Every structure is written in C-alpha cells, then in structure tokens.
C-alpha cells in the first residue's frame, strides 16, 4: 500500500446551512489519477471545493501530507501543494497568455519565476506559440490547458480538476485527457470530476462514484467501468434504482 496523498474521513460539506456531501471517506494514493463520477447534483464539485476550502465545511477530516487541513483557508492549502482548477473559464480573458502565466507565478519568489515558466512551457509547448495571444481568444481546449498550466506553476502535489473537458469538442477533450495523464506522470496526484465518464475512466487509476452526496462505489477504474450498474446509470438510469 502506497502512502495516501489525501485522506478524506467522514467529510460533510456544503453551502450555507445545507450539507451537500455527507460522511464521505476516501483515500487518494500519490501519483494516481482518480475520477469522481456521479449524477447532476451528486455533490462532486462540492467535494472538490471542500478539499480546496472554498465552501462550508461541517465535519470530518481532510488529511493532506499527514496534516489536517480542513480548517485552513484556501491560500494556505495552495501553499501546502493543493492546486484547484474550478469549473468554467478560469483565466483572465483580456490578458495575454504571458500575463496569465505571470499571474500564476504571483505567490512564488521572483527568483523561481523563470524556471517555473520554462517547466510548464516544456509540458505545454502551445503556450509558447500563443504567448502574446489574449486568453479569451484561445480555443476552449487551449484555455483549459492554460488554466492547468497556471496551477502547475506552483508545483502542486495534488491537482483538483472540475470538469476540465466541459464544452469541448471530442478532439479537444482527448487533448485535455492526454494532458492530465502527462501531469500525473510528473508525480502529481489528480482528482478529476468529469462529465465524460468514459474518457475519464480510461485515463484513471481509480474511480469514486457519488450519489446524493454520499459515496456509492469505489475501486480500480477498469472495474468501475465494467460494472453493469455504472454502465446502466450512465446510459440514462439511476444508480440506486439500478442497484436495487
């Protein structure tokens, strides 16, 4: 058993007075890709936000690198190595790629900027060719890659991706999945929420299935992909009805 990069213990989180995710426990092993799947409103994005600290945390424990982080503000979680790319467009659209990348370096010491920028450009050469282009004028896939690059500048050891392929063409979705694999190969642990379940499961090591705020299933991605209940649910059924 490898060391867990993230340990979620009975996490209950939500918004205002409403817990959305309830008693959710899971372990993410270092350097793996885990896909979090579930129907609309299952609480997938809420769980990612709870890990990053941008919503209300009710109870439970979030242990990252042997430290309980559930009460830390987001910027301290960022400092400890958690990167989050939220759903939707997450860049500065009227700023150039160069300016966006420089904004991503903001919390790094100035002496480390050049090395960090070189590292992400080596990972995503597209950034160099579009260096002076405004982020808002990039294609959807390019914007998604820019957003991941901005987070990777800080060398996170855990990357949270919320719907990275949302609204992209099948070709661009494939590019994004390839990129996520490339990121994981550098040793980063990835937890990804994805609407393209088939594509996400194909690149993942493990999968977590959520239904109505709770964990419904977990296991190796290949097993989850082969499970008839998952096949049924994602062809239009409901996991709990299928299970019953």
């Amino acid at each position, binding site marked *: 058993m490898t060391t867990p990069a993230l340990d979620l213990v009975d996490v209950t989180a939500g918004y205002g007075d409403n817990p959305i995710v309830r008693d959710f426990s899971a372990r993410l092993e270092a350097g793996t890709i885990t896909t979090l799947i579930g129907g609309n409103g299952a609480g997938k994005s809420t769980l990612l936000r709870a890990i*990053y600290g*941008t919503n209300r945390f009710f109870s439970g424990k979030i242990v990252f690198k042997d430290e309980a982080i559930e009460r830390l503000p*987001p*910027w301290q979680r*960022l*400092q400890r190595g958690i990167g*989050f790319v*939220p759903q939707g467009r*997450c*860049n*500065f*659209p*009227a*700023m150039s790629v160069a*300016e966006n990348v*420089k*904004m*991503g370096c*903001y*919390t790094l010491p100035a002496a480390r900027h050049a090395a960090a920028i070189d590292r992400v450009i080596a990972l995503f050469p597209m950034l160099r060719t579009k260096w002076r282009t405004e982020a808002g*004028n990039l294609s959807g896939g390019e914007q998604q890659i820019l957003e991941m690059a*901005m987070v990777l500048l800080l060398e996170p050891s855990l990357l949270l991706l919320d719907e990275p392929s949302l609204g992209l063409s099948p070709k661009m979705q494939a590019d994004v999945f390839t990129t996520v694999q490339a990121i994981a190969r550098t040793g980063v642990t990835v937890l990804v929420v994805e609407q393209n379940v088939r594509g996400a499961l194909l690149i993942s090591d493990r999968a977590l299935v959520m239904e109505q705020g709770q964990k419904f299933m977990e296991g190796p991605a290949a097993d989850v992909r082969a499970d008839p209940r998952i096949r049924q649910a994602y062809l239009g059924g409901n996991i709990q009805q299928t299970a019953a």
Partner: protein
Amino acid sequence: MKAVAIVVAALAFGLLPYLTSSNYILGVAVSAAIYTVAAAALNLIYGYTGLLSFAQLGFWGIGGYATALTVVTFGGTFWLGLLWAGLLNAALALIVGYPTLRVGRHAFVIVTLTFALLVTLVARDWVDLTRGPLGIPGLPAPSLFGFEFKTTSHFYWIAWIYALLALGFLYALGTSRIGRTLVAIKQNEPLVRAQGIAPMPYKLAAFAISAAITGIAGGIFAFHLKVIDPLFLDFYYMQTFLIMVIIGGAGSFWGVVIAGIALSALPEVLRFSSDFRMIIYGVVLLVIMLVMPGGFAGWIRQRRLARMRAALR
C-alpha cells in the same frame, strides 16, 4: 520608437507657452493637463480595478479646499497645501474604502456617490470653515524660491510638470506587477483569490492612490481658477472625468490620456457653433459610443483582432 514619440509629445506640450501667448489657449491646456490626470486616476480605480468610484468628485473638492485653506486660513504654502490634499484624501479613501470594499462592487458605487454628495454638503453648509456659497476668492499665485507663478503661462508649468509626474507614476504602476494584479481582480476576482492573492490590499491601495492624485489635481486647479466655492464640486467634473475614461477605453492608459486631451479641447473647438456647442458635443459623444462601444482603445483592439483573424483565413 514609441518611447521617442511619447517624449517628443511630452516636450511639445511643455513648449506650449513658447508657441503661444494666448491665455485662453494656455488656460485650456491647464484644464486638459489637470482633467487628464484626474481621469487617469479614475481609470486606475475604475478602468483597471473595475470599481466605479464617484468619490473622485469628493476627492477633487477636498483637494481644492484643503489646498486653499492651507494657504488662506492656515498661512501655509501652496506646496504644503498640495501635500495635505494628497495625504488627507489618501487617508479618507482608506477610511471609506476599508468597510465598503468588503461589501461588494455595487455597495462601493453607492457609498462613493454618497461620499461625494456629503462633501458637497460640507462645502456648502460648513460656513465657518469653507465660507459656504461665498467660497474663498482671491487665491494667491503660488511661488517657489522667490519665483511667482503669476501668469497663466507660468501656472501652465505647474500643471504640465504635475501631469508628467502623475501620469508617469500611473503608467509605471499600471505596467507593474501591481497593475497586472488590479486588472486580474477586475477580470476574475475569485480566481485571484484561488491563486492565493488577497485582493483587498490592492483595491484599497488603488483607491487611496487615485484619491491622492485626484486631490492634488483639484488643489492645482483651484489655484488656476483663483477661487474655490461649492461649484467646484459640480457633478460636471465627475461626468467629465468619467466620459474621458469611457471614451478613451476603461483600463487603457494611453486611451484615457488621448481622450483626456481631446475631450478637453473639443468643447473649445466647438465654440464657433455658439448655442449649439454642447448639443454638438453630446452628439459627438453619442456617435463615438455607437462606433466605439469599448472606447478608443477598445476600437483599436477590435481592429487589431479583425486583422489577425483576416490573416488566419
């Protein structure tokens, strides 16, 4: 090349008193310099940071009154008055901005508008301090090392040098890491937070800097007029600064500078039309907004993008 053009243009404006002896033209030039600085200061808080501040009118008035009172009531120099104008406005901006910026952008607009109205009331009704509607006439010409800036051409130097310093500072700030962060806050504040940056100190600093620069501009302008009264807080000034920012292109330094100079000169150019002058001015603004909804800078940007797209076809 661009830097050379800028230096040449700045020097050309500096040589204006040698090119004309007309007090009318030099007076318009003083207004242009001061209005452009006030517009550029508004651009810092509104154009860059995305916070529409009507408090600029209040800072303008406080700057004018602080400088005038320092000289006339407290016996200080014009320069000390300007220093007070800047410091007082920066302090007030911090006091007003700290609670307001926590609430949200809409609350900020309302509070800054209320602040401007409050300053107008104080100027009119605190008669013991401001002399109310009578105002403070006969503001003396500033002097430095025995040299008195008595004539309009002499006073133009003060306005020109202040414009160079203030615009140079705002340009440096806008192109720095701080300026980039302000623009980022305007474009996507939640993302700025997600990247571990606290927006509040940046917003507060932008507000205080724009207040100080506007206040000093107000102080200089009051001494150009040689009188200050509650009309100095007429909404006309706020509207002028805002129009300059919008027509120039909110968030564009050079767009606002060009608009500041052009729109200061435009009403004077239209004087030939006598009674129709302001109607024509309004129509010109309407047409500009219809043709360039993103302002002058936005229009240039759109053209550049169109050229790029055409080249890709």
